[in-house]
């Protein structure tokens, strides 16, 4: 076997370290019994216990998950429609403007998106009386607005990669357009839809800036709570929470990997 170059090896080690050391140190310190986050005071799991006593964090986490799930679901529905319009309707009036608006949230700084949504909600409340104040609803709508753009892009690229003739073949065999959408297009878009949902979910869970703009009293999401706590000094129960989230994500990724490997095996088995 060829001897591996030390340069390549050190680059590899550095790369892995760059990615994983922060996460590992976070997990490590979540088992720290000391109240000071950076000083090791012996092994303990007490912060996990304390985490579950902390209603503020638990409620914020539950709220965040709920908002993430709802906004991801709606983002997928709207994003699929937008993606279909972009890649299947050919040319229509205002297509260019539509493409621009769909991709705008991808390049728009979050502050701008947040501010413009806040202004929209405030003026809508003045004009039509809805939304009544700001809270969970406005955060969800705001998250749908920017996640939908990502879903639309994913769906559009999946559609352009799909074999063109499949939909025509279904139509040729007697499928009316809606039927073809249901029988052929949507099943084949399933991976893109799942990817879009997961991405939207993650981004919603992650968002601090936009949520800060459009949230109201009593509707603090997890990132907002953590951020406000960090300002007063990091407490180890946040480390514990982060460790649990990392664990959940890792499990999800491993499951997805196993499923994909299983499918790939089935595909190439003759």
């Amino acid at each position, binding site marked *: 076997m060829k001897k591996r170059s030390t340069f390549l090896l050190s680059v590899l080690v550095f790369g892995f370290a760059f990615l994983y050391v922060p996460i590992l140190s976070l997990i490590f310190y979540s088992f720290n019994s000391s109240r000071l986050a950076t000083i090791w005071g012996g092994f303990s799991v007490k912060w996990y216990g304390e985490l579950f006593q902390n209603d503020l964090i638990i409620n914020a986490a539950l709220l965040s998950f709920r908002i993430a799930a709802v906004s991801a679901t709606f983002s997928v529905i709207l994003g699929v429609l937008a993606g279909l319009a972009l890649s299947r309707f050919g040319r229509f009036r205002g297509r260019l403007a539509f493409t621009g608006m769909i991709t705008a949230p991808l390049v728009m700084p979050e502050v701008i998106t947040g501010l413009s949504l806040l202004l929209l909600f405030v003026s809508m409340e003045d004009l039509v009386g809805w939304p009544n104040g700001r809270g969970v609803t406005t955060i969800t709508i705001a998250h749908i607005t920017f996640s939908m753009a990502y879903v639309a892009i994913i769906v559009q690229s999946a559609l352009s990669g799909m074999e063109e*003739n499949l939909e*025509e*073949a279904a*139509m*040729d*065999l*007697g499928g009316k357009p809606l039927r073809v959408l249901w*029988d052929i297009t949507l099943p084949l878009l399933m991976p893109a839809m799942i990817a879009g949902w997961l991405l939207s979910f993650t981004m919603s869970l992650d968002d601090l800036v936009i949520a800060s703009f459009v949230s109201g009293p009593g509707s603090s999401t997890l990132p907002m709570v953590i951020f406000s706590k960090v300002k007063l000094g990091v407490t180890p129960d946040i480390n514990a929470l982060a460790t649990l989230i990392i664990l959940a994500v890792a499990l999800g990724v491993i499951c997805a990997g196993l499923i994909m490997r299983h499918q790939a095996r089935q*595909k190439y*088995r003759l």
Partner: protein
Amino acid sequence: MTEFKKPIVGDRPAFDAEAEPFIDIQGVGKKFGVFTAIDDISLKIYKGELFSLLGGSGCGKTTLLRILAGFEKPSKGRVIIDGTDVTDMPPYERPVNMMFQSYALFPHMTVEKNVAYGLHRDGVSKVETRERVADMLALVEMSDFAKRKPNQLSGGQKQRVALARSLVKRPKVLLLDEPLGALDKRLREHTQFELMNIQDKLGITFVVVTHDQEEAMTLSSRIAVMDKGNVIQVGTPSDIYESPETKFTAEFIGSINMFDCHVKESGRDHLVAHCGALAQDFYLDRGVAVKEARQLWLAVRPEKIQISRQSTVENGVNELPAFIHDIAYMGTHTIYRIRLANGQILQATTPNLRRSSEGERNLTWEDAVFVSWEPSSMVVLMK
């Protein structure tokens, strides 16, 4: 005898001259923006035919097929299938099915479900669907693969499934886009005959798009040769091969040798043309309606040319002295490239009727020979 009038070929099938056209394409044209895909095409296709649209890429053949299927609306003209004007009918209402070049099998459905899809859409009962799908899969010899997914099949197997799927609804017309294009040579030959058998068995009218002249020749009852959005010539394979009407058709189908001539003598039952470059007269034993001094091409197919060491023809009619320029031994036949006095290269093929024995002296490079052909073997192509 009306020698001057060409027999009408290519407008009616030989087997049923009384038939009404089954597919009537009336002055169809299609433009995409400024690009003209189809200029102006009128064609009559009869019931039970295996009709080929033959042409190079960009000649409009696929667009015409897509117009028949209903995926494209013609910019002008009408399409009538079995007496019904289908020009404005969407694809899912047409009594037509298509087999795509890429097969377009639904990757998320099993072979069985793929074939059953069309029947489900028509609301055929479960029992009947199962029966018809099984019959179709048996016809294409794919019964053992019913539970497989398309990506577990080979190219040839996919093609059979695609064929079964497009036949199961018993369409009035089956459209095939390059049906043999993706198969290797051995499989092509096999499938070619199988397609003809199936067509024979079911009596469905087939319209095939192909760029492969060999495929068109073996498959078709009639061929329409297309170029630049127009039909150049319609006829049976032998019409197209033996009596091409234009230089394009002659050169597109098979190989042909051309002589640039002018008419020296035009009679009722013969034609003499002079080829200036060779200083040679050619004699044709049938009359052609042309005036004297008219420029034209005389053409002769390679297999019509005889090669001999000695002059064999009296008075040297249609005989030229030449040299063997190149030889390609093909097993069943040999292709000779023959150099004429003016440097023009002729192609001639001779069947290898006997095994070459050692005593026999074969023709070899730079041998002096005579090439000749029958006065009836030549084709006149107008300039």
